[in-house]
């Protein structure tokens, strides 16, 4: 099952609703980059509120997607990282230092609008 990517003005919205397996994660990476290319999106919000568990591979793919999107000129905000997931990521040594994060989708969009300057 592929992850739906929604377009809202010049932003793309992705809400990940179930645990990602390796295959889905890679497909998602391809799909997202393709969509950014097609739509010329300037911002991407990835909401992972429903995810309670993340492994190092998924974390790496997410980090990669963020860097790739940035290369293509889209700013990425990750929203709704659960406390347990945050602890796992820190323990895995994944800090996502230069990635924007927000508590929820609403605040994420707000932050993105601010960053994009309108």
């Amino acid at each position: 099952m592929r992850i739906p990517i929604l377009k809202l003005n010049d932003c793309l919205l992705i809400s990940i609703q179930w645990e990602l397996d390796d295959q889905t994660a890679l497909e998602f990476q391809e799909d997202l980059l393709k969509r950014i290319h097609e739509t010329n999106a300037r911002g991407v919000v990835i909401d992972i509120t429903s995810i309670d568990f993340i492994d190092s591979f998924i974390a790496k793919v997410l980090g990669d997607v963020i860097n790739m999107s940035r290369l293509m000129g889209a700013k990425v905000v990750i929203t709704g990282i659960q406390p347990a997931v945050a602890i796992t990521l820190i323990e895995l040594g994944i800090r996502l230092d230069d990635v924007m994060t927000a508590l929820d989708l609403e605040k994420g969009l707000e932050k993105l609008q601010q960053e994009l300057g309108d």
Partner: protein
Amino acid sequence: MYNKIAGHIEEHREELEKIWKDRLINDGEERIIDVMPQHIFESTSTDFFDIILLNLKDKGREYKVKLVNFSDKVVRLGWPVALVMKGLREFVHTVQENLVQYGSIDKEREGDYLELLDKWMTPISNEIVQTYAETWEKTVSLQKMALQELSAPLIPVVDQISVMPLVGTIDTERARLVMENLLDGVVNHRSEVVLIDITGVPVVDTMVAHHIIQAAEAVHLVGAKCMLVGIRPEIAQTIVNLGIDLDRFITTSTMKKGVELALEMTGRKIVELEG
């Protein structure tokens, strides 16, 4: 043999009790006897005697209940376990000497009697030690719980701003608790900025700094900003001397400045009312 001892003790009870108490008091090391009111010492000692005798005559329910009650009582009175154990030991000696003195037992069989007396005391001492140990364990676990409740509270002070004051030493266990409370609190209170106040942390070494940095990074992941406040001069010195890199975090010396900065970051400020 049991009956013989029991008979002897009952017969000479008052004398034995007196010798035994004198021995306990005169030994002198136990200061607790000096500070204890005389009548409490007397009544407890009598209880003690009753129980030992009851043990001899009847091993049924009544004895069990009395023994438990007695153990609870000495624990509550705060008798040191050493004193109670000494009481038991002295009792054995007193009875044995008394038996020999009255010629109730033959010299050759003294060893047998001593062994019998010992066997007879073991369940009592076991029960008492057990009660003491349980009380101590209970106290320790209660204190542990209290400490845990106190160790990492997150206080929502203003909308979108929360504060976590840390007081005392931070070890790995506590750091884990700090991180969990911090993240859960940020998500529950929907805070934008959290201030970790380390005014009360006596020493910041690399380990503590590592834990704090991890917590701050985790806060960033859930989508809030983390500020480190309450950095005392000596803490600043250690941090720099140890080469700990806190460049990625906003740090201030006092909570007051931290709150002002946090308000500024969330687009607000404190103004004085006119008039």
